[in-house]
């Protein structure tokens, strides 16, 4: 799981995708070319940050169909659509289906670079958030049932004395559970524990 962004260029026209790749690689970016949507999906690593540049009009899987497939996969990568002459209506539909933006062929270099840079930033944020969330989920999964109960009570703002009374255990035992809980969640303080639990989506139920 490398943190380096990769840019996927999807275009059925070899010269066109190579031209794009040549431009983007000039920026020091890692570029991968794909002749179609299916080829992309076959090798896509959704956890790696980056973005997808896809031609709207392609034989086989069209740009719009590719967007649908990516959404079904819950792929976090932003998609920028490249459109030909007079395809603005289709491009607008693509935006409605979740594309980040669309650019008209022949693509203006600077505009493309700006959009790609932006897309990669978005992608990195998303990827970081996803990684954090995945780590939290791992920590939460390691909690015992008793520790989870204590965690919920802490989140509800109960004091150790009250938690002990609620669970019918001694206050000493609560303190032990709470210590283990903090360890497992990697939280140095009660405040951090609460923050992490909230980030994991707790406290909303």
């Amino acid at each position, binding site marked *: 799981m490398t943190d380096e962004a990769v840019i996927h260029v999807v275009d059925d*026209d070899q*010269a*066109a995708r190579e031209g794009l790749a*040549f431009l983007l690689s*000039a920026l020091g970016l890692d570029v991968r070319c794909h002749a179609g949507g299916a080829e992309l999906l076959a090798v896509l690593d959704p956890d790696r940050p980056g973005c997808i540049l896809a031609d709207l009009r392609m034989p086989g899987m069209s740009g719009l169909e590719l967007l649908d497939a990516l959404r079904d996969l819950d792929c976090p990568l932003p998609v920028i659509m*490249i459109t*030909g*002459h007079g395809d603005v209506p289709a491009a607008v539909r693509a935006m409605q289906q979740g594309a980040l933006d669309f650019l008209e*062929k*022949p693509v203006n270099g600077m505009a493309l670079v700006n959009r790609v840079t932006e897309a990669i930033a978005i992608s990195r944020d998303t990827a970081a958030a996803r990684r954090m969330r995945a780590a939290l989920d791992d920590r939460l999964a390691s909690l015992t049932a008793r520790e989870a109960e204590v965690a919920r009570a802490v989140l509800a703002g109960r004091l150790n004395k009250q938690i002990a009374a609620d669970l019918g255990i001694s206050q000493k035992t609560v303190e032990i559970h709470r210590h283990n809980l903090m360890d497992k969640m990697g939280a140095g303080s009660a405040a951090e524990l609460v923050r992490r639990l909230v980030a994991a989506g707790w406290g909303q139920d």
Partner: protein
Amino acid sequence: MRALLAALCLSAIPVQAAAEELRIGVLDYAGADYALSHWAYTVQGLNAALPDHHFRLVALDMPALDAALAEGAVDFVITNPGHYAQLEYGHRISRIATTEDDAPVAGSLITTQDLDSLDDLAGKRLAVVSTEAFGGFRLIWGEMMDSNPRLPSRIELVETGFPMQRVADAVLDGQADAGAMRACMLEQLQADHPGRYDALRVFAQRDSGGSDCAVSTRIYPGWPFAKTEATPPDTAKQVALALLAMGGDTRWTVPVDYQPVHDLLRRLRIGPYARGPVSPGDVVEDYRDWLIALALALLFWAIYSVRIERRVRQRTRELDDSNHRLRLEMAERQRMEEAERQHRREIEHVARLSILGEMASSIAHELNQPLAAISGFAQGSLIRLQGGTMTAPEMQTAATRIAEQAERAATVIRRIRAFVRKREVQMQPLRPADLLRDSQALFAPAANRGGVSVTIDAPDNLPRVLADPIQMQQVLLNLVQNAIDAMQTTPPEDRRIDITLRSDTTPKPGVTLRLRDHGTGMDPAALARFAEAFHTTKPDGIGLGLALSRSIVEAHGGTMQAGPPATGSGLVVTIWLPVAGDDLERKGADHDG
């Protein structure tokens, strides 16, 4: 209506009721006074004989008597035999007694001239009191029909009106050659007015049956006394007995047979016999077998001819229908074929004229990929050069790719050119004004949409030019479309295109078309590249329309230029075409788009 109710009451009330009025309708042909006085004795006798009833005479003319019977306003009727026969049929009255007069019911013909027989009346004027009169007209008429059915049509009738004395006067005064009167009328007149009517005599005489009067017809039954349908039978019976018992002037006898009267009416086709014989019984008796045979033959013939006729008509109708359908179908087919041809022509036309439009999207599509590739390699190279990261292999790759994609684009352009040349060019001598008119139909919709008015100044007397109409229309359409596009930001009142056609002798005999718009115009830099391929000033143009237009004009041996107008904003495009000549025909045939 009241009278009718009364009559109904009468029919229901027993005879021993109090004196009730019974009305006797009497035909009044010579004035009410005469009728009333003539029958007065009869009424007195009846009133005397039937004290329980009160009889009253009502003098009525024929229509009134008819109406009275229809309403049930009279209980008894006294009228002439002819009228009785009609009423017998029309109102179901029936005679209970007949007069036994000294005067026979018959007609007499009178004249002062030398006439002997009925036939002598041919071509003569005959005075009659009325064509409705029984004794005064119908009896005579019947005799004429018997003797010669064509005779009546050759006699001119002179109607004098009542009293009947006028008939005699008319003959004496020379208004008629002869007259028809009731029997005994003449004798009575001669007795009443000594000397006045002596010149008149009765002719065509017949047996008078023992009467003193001269008659010209057979003798008919006398006037009947008739009861109506509503008259109570007992009352009718009492009345009949009283009548038979009477003496005096007017004697009544048992009702006689009125068949001769019916025969007469039938012969004359009047009254109940107005529409031919009602009961042709006697005729049938005489010719029974013949009639049956004839009827069968007629029936057979009728059925046969009706069938034939029907079949013929049916066939004819079917034929007519199918002919009509055929004609309709043919017309429809012709119309459709014509519409189809027209449609094809239009489609072809539009297809040719929209070549540029179609090419726009196909060119865009075809050129986009190589252009995208070129642009990518070029921009990538620039970034690398600026960043100093360009390697020799990368440079080689980029240059190679750029070159091959440029070639690819050139191939696309060549293909487009070939596409434009695909149509057979058809050069023909054209009148410039006609060319402009045909084009106008094409660019008018676009001009309307753009709110642009097009003024055309095209004299009809210009020399002809040798041109391919389709191609020249393409050129004009393209120029007008450009002008419309250039005026999108022009105030609506200034959106005008002025097209003028003028004959021109420089550089050689030709025709010049000037098209001026009031749009944004072109700056000198743009003008310098006017009609250059792939140079456009439109945000979404491709820069081929004018280039193609110019190549078309030049293929026609002409020139196309653009410049600023003498005054105001806008652009003037000038096209010059040479006058049609033999030397131009070869040129048009082998030009190369």
